[in-house]
C-alpha cells in the first residue's frame, strides 16, 4: 500500500509518516494540494491520501475536488486529517469526495482505525 501525506507542516508529516510506515505503507509527501496534484500527474498515485485542510497554495478541500474531477484517480482513497472540526466543514469534505475525516489532534490508533475501516489495513 502507498500513502501520500499532504500537509504543510513537516512535523505533522513526520508524525503521520511514522504511523503509516508502521503499517508497512510506502509513503510520499506533499507540502500542499498543488504539490500533491503535480505528483499525481507525474505518476505518483497512492492508494490513500492523508490530506490537511488549511495549507498555502492549494488547500485540502480544493485538492479533493480536483482529484474527484479526474476519473483516472477515482480509486484513490481520500482521508482528511485536519483541525477543521465544524460539522459544516466535515459535511463539505465528505460531499466533495473525502472518504474519512480525522480531527487533529489524533492518536495513532485513530488513524489506524480509520484506515482499517477503509479496508486499507487488516482490522
Amino acid at each position, binding site marked *: 500500500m502507498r500513502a501520500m501525506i499532504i500537509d504543510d507542516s513537516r512535523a505533522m508529516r*513526520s*508524525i503521520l509518516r511514522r504511523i503509516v510506515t508502521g503499517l508497512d505503507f510506502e509513503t510520499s509527501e506533499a507540502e500542499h494540494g498543488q504539490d500533491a496534484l503535480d505528483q499525481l500527474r507525474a505518476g505518483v498515485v497512492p492508494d490513500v491520501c492523508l490530506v490537511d485542510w488549511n495549507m498555502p497554495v492549494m488547500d485540502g478541500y480544493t485538492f479533493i475536488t480536483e482529484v474527484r474531477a479526474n476519473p483516472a484517480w477515482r480509486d484513490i482513497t481520500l482521508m482528511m486529517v485536519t483541525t477543521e472540526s*465544524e460539522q459544516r466543514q466535515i459535511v463539505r469534505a465528505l460531499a466533495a469526495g473525502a472518504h474519512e475525516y480525522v480531527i487533529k489532534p489524533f492518536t495513532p490508533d485513530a488513524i489506524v482505525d480509520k484506515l482499517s475501516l477503509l479496508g486499507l489495513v487488516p482490522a
Partner: protein
Amino acid sequence: MSAAAHESPASEDVRAVTEDVWMVLLGEDGGLRPRTVPADAPFDAAAWSAATTISGGWHGVVTVELDEALARLLTGRMLALTDDETATDSDVADAVGELVNMVGGNVKSLMPGPSTLSLPAVAAGRAAFGSDSALACRIDLAWQDGPVRVSVHVPQGGPR
C-alpha cells in the same frame, strides 16, 4: 450580530484543549502543570511565539508562547529526532506553527461558527498584541519545567 458572537472561550476549555493537544503529541510525557503568574505579567521566557486568527461567526487570535529549550524539545519529539540530531530554527518554527494550528483549531470549535482559521504566523520572540485587541483568556502552564502560555485575544470592545 448574534449574542453568541460576543462570547469568549472559557479558560478551563482552552486549558483542556491545550492539554489534549500536548498529551496527543507527547504521549505519557505530555502532562502539563498549572503555573502561577501574576495577572498582566508579560511572558517571562518567550523565545518562540505563534498565532492563528479565527474569523467569521467569531473573531479572535489564539497565541502560543514558549521558551527556547521547550520549543526545541517539543520539535524534537514531533520530528522524532535522535539525540544526535538537532532541530533547526526552521524545524522549530514549523512545529510551533503546527502546535498553534491545533490549539487554535480546537478553540475555534468551541466558539460560534462558521469561521475560518488562518495559517499560523510564527515569530522568534514574544508575541505582540495591537491596541485594538483585548485579552479574553490566558493560561500559564509548564511542561518539563519550561513555561508555556496560551492566550486568546479578541477585538477591543469584545468579540465581533
